[in-house]
């Protein structure tokens, strides 16, 4: 019996208890209200052995930090505060920018958080409409009112009496020497540098213990950062504040509402940009003697193509995860169709859906962005392509290349990639790993280094796009060309599990442990059933792992 079916049953019975399956019947749980810092909790405790997940302490990534500031201070020109802080650590194997264990701060972070806070505070305190307080003649009472509202939004829950008193202390001491506006600024600066703002703390204020249901404010925060990459909006905060969010149906309804927002698409793009490494396409250079038609404009269109494809397939009902690696269509405008040599489409900038010729449909694996990104300036690069499939789609961990490797053979214009690879990987000690990588990468040989389909290789030789997957479980064995590879991968349980794993990493900021198998199984079933992005998010939100504290 797989972990999934066991836990699946458990989860369904739990959902039944809360009335979710009954169609959204609301239950007012706990006391709720603005006075509770954790918000309403009391969703009970998960039985021992039920599916739960520990969630590490997470600092706002620069993406989330900037989104959050924009949402806290709407209408102000804040610049790009996420760019003013040192870049996030992006672990090669982890792929995403939010790995909690790598989020340690340096003095430069502290400095830049302070500078951004000063800049923002100066800007917003000069606006009496925003603060409700006149910068020159504001009163302490006015400040108190501002602090209660602003503090609750920034900390994503009401301030405690102690916190209010501390910030009031900062305000009072600065006011004595520098006046009201500076004191307001200091209070805002303090909030924006507080660990309560910079981290998503899930302190168990109520002492509910492990496996207890999260408080409503904590749930709201998890939900909002998952879907929007930002702080809860007024509606969600209100549902947390009055305790309604403890109702699973309300939580799900809020998740659906947030998924409809434009900001949700921004998070979706952020996820896939990182997973697939897409934005780097725009930095790609090609040898102009070999690929005179490739340009930064073409690269930009290729990025558009893939982003449009992802949105249509995963957000707009064009087939879900099952089409990601097997769609026999893509989205191009006239210049891009010309570049690829596809059937002309009507003029204009807008990308339109076009059917691909037979044998070329492999979803994003057949697109120019993938092919030209995973290539050198002169040749296709079967190693890069194979490594992408292995690490990003199959979640394999490849051992590092050995020391003292022989020089890579050079392309002089007359060698096929297959010939070059054969030379390079023949050496003793290289074959083991390259056997996992190269035969997959060689299956992409119809796509040249600049992303264009070709039937002929160097010196007019026909392209040989035969390949095979070794150590690939169900998909082990030979294939010819990207369409066959895409079909193999699309049906592969290993690929489904890997996609679930990538989403898990993105959602939890850590690698899954063995105990997360139950959560991964839930997510995998969405991918395997060709669900879309919303289905994946909703499945996570309704899971116990999302709603309850870990062990």
């Amino acid at each position, binding site marked *: 019996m797989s972990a999934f079916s066991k836990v699946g049953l458990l989860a369904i019975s739990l959902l039944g208890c809360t009335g979710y399956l009954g169609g959204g019947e609301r239950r007012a749980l706990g006391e709720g209200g603005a006075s509770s810092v954790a918000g309403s909790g009391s969703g009970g405790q998960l039985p021992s052995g039920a599916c739960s997940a520990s969630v*590490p*302490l997470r*600092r706002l990534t620069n993406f989330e930090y900037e989104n959050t500031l924009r949402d806290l201070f709407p209408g102000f020109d804040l610049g790009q505060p996420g760019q003013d802080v*040192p*870049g*996030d*650590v*992006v*672990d*090669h194997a982890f792929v995403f*920018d939010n790995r*909690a*264990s*790598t*989020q*340690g*701060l*340096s*003095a430069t*972070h*502290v*400095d830049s958080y*302070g500078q951004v806070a000063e800049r923002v505070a100066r800007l917003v305190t000069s606006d009496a409409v925003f603060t409700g307080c006149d910068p020159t003649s504001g009163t302490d009472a006015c400040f108190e009112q501002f602090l209660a509202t602003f503090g609750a939004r920034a900390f994503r829950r009401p301030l405690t009496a102690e916190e209010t008193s*501390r910030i009031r202390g*900062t305000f009072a001491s*600065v006011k004595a*020497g*520098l006046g009201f506006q*500076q004191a307001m600024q*200091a209070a805002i*600066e*303090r909030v924006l*540098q*507080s*660990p309560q703002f910079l*981290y998503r703390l899930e*302190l*168990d204020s109520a002492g509910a213990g492990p496996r207890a249901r999260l408080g409503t404010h904590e749930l709201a925060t998890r939900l909002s950062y998952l879907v929007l990459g930002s702080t809860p909006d007024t509606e969600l905060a209100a549902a947390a504040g009055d305790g309604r969010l403890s109702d699973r149906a309300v939580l799900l309804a809020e998740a659906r509402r947030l998924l409809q927002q434009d900001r949700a698409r921004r998070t979706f793009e952020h996820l896939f940009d990182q997973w697939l*490494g897409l934005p*780097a396409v725009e*930095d*790609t*250079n*090609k*040898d*102009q003697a070999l690929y005179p038609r490739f340009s930064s404009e073409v690269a930009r269109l290729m990025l558009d193509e893939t982003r449009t494809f992802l949105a249509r397939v995963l957000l707009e009902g064009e087939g879900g995860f099952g089409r990601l690696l097997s769609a026999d269509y893509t989205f191009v405008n006239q210049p891009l169709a010309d570049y690829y040599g596809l059937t002309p489409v009507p003029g204009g900038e807008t990308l339109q859906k076009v059917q691909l010729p037979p044998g070329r449909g492999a979803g994003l694996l057949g697109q120019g962005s993938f092919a030209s*990104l995973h290539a*050198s*300036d*002169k040749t296709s690069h079967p190693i890069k392509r194979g490594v992408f499939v292995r690490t990003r789609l199959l979640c394999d961990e490849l051992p*590092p*290349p050995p*020391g*003292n*490797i*022989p*020089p*890579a053979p*050079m392309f*002089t214009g007359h060698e096929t990639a297959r010939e070059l690879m054969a030379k390079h990987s023949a050496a003793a000690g290289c074959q083991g790993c390259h056997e996992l990588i190269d035969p997959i990468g060689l299956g992409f040989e119809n796509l040249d280094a600049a992303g264009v389909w070709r039937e002929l290789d160097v010196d007019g030789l026909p392209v040989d796009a035969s390949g095979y997957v070794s150590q690939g479980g169900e998909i082990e064995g030979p294939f010819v060309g990207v369409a066959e590879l895409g079909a193999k991968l699309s049906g592969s349980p290993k690929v489904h599990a890997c996609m679930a794993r990538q989403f898990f990493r993105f959602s939890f900021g850590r690698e899954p442990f063995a105990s997360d198998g139950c959560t991964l199984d839930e997510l995998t079933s969405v991918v395997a059933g060709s669900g879309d992005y919303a289905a994946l998010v909703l499945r996570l939100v309704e899971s116990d792992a999302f709603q309850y504290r870990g062990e």
Partner: protein
Amino acid sequence: MKPSLSRRRVLRAAGFALTLPFLRSLEPRAARAAEGAAKRLVLWYQPDGDMEEKPYWFPRGSEQDFLLGEVSGVLEPVKQELIFLHGVHNGTPAGDCHSDYMPQMQTGGTRVDSIDQLIAAGLTGATPFSSLEFGVGTDREASNGGRLSFKGGVALAPEADPNQMFLHVFRDRASSGGSPPADDAQAAARLKLLHEKRLSILDGVLEELGAVSGRVGQEDRLLLDQHATAVRDFEKTLSALNQSMGEAAPASCGMPVLDVSALGGQTQWHGGIDNASVPNLDKIAKVQQDLLLLALRCDMSRVVTFMYNRSLSSQTFEFLPVVNRTTISHLFAHTWRTTPEMESDFLLIKKWRASMFLQLVQALAAIPEGAGTMLDQTLLVWMCEMGLGSHAPSNIPFVIAGGGGAFRTGRFLQYGGAGEPHQKLYLSLAHAMGVPLASFGGVSEALPGLV
């Protein structure tokens, strides 16, 4: 031989008269050793090792009498200021060569504290910044494998944008055009209050971190502890800057001015490993090195890491007369041997970097300090994470310039047999800086022959 020639003048002249260095090399190199500990350390990094099996880098000859190769020959004008090392290995290689050797090497395999940070922590004379990290075309977001400096397990990212670096180092002085805006008493008092405000906010953050830290699990606490350390470090910087507000900057500092006119319109500063290449890299390098010199002249820090790109970099070199204008750094490192054009291109790249090192040595030697020049009191170390771009951790092309009064220069030191691990060299650097580090990366002996 002209005994009246001061070293400074020679170094200035060296770029124009190729015969002068030869004269220079005939001069006896009296040991400046034991004059005292070196005052500052600059680790100058370039990626992907060297072109080892060709006679491009390592000198040939004996300790005192040696000839330079085609790449190292760029440094001929300052040969007597240098110590070339042969046979020093990366003693702590593990994991992926391109994404692990850099942090492995700098931390001696611990991935907690890098040698520059260990030395910075041991220095007693406080400068505003315990260390500075400069980048040229370095990545903004990287795995820790793309970093050299670590403190308490946290990577210290280099700053690749000179404008940002200038503001970072000079702050109020930068925005007020050199001198602190303390013209009238009222303004000075206000500035003091603003500084106090900053410090009191940070104290508040520390207090909150302390309160929260006891309520989270052990792994989460590590993040909060790292944060608290970072706040304390930055408080020290702020306090030191505040204290120096009223004081005169060192005479050699003058008015901090950054000339970025060569980089007008530049918007991209960060490179990476995924195709990102930074345009005008040569101009950025020049400005960053000028800024490094300025920071040293103003004694803003005594420990600096200066980094050119990184291992696995996607940098291209179209600013040099290379044939392969779109070929990236990483590919050059692996394929330079395969065609004559690749080889000559790679030579151009290596020689360009060497010329940047030369500029730095010459510039340091042109700034008077104490009885001599700034170079005399500086340990400037050319370093690399590999011996060869093809992943070999052996025989790293280290060069030490200046000697900091602790090491005798103008030499070529060869460590035969199994060679020596780099930990010994790093331990020697610490000792030369007056930091009595007992061991580094599991090694507790210094590198023989340097003193």
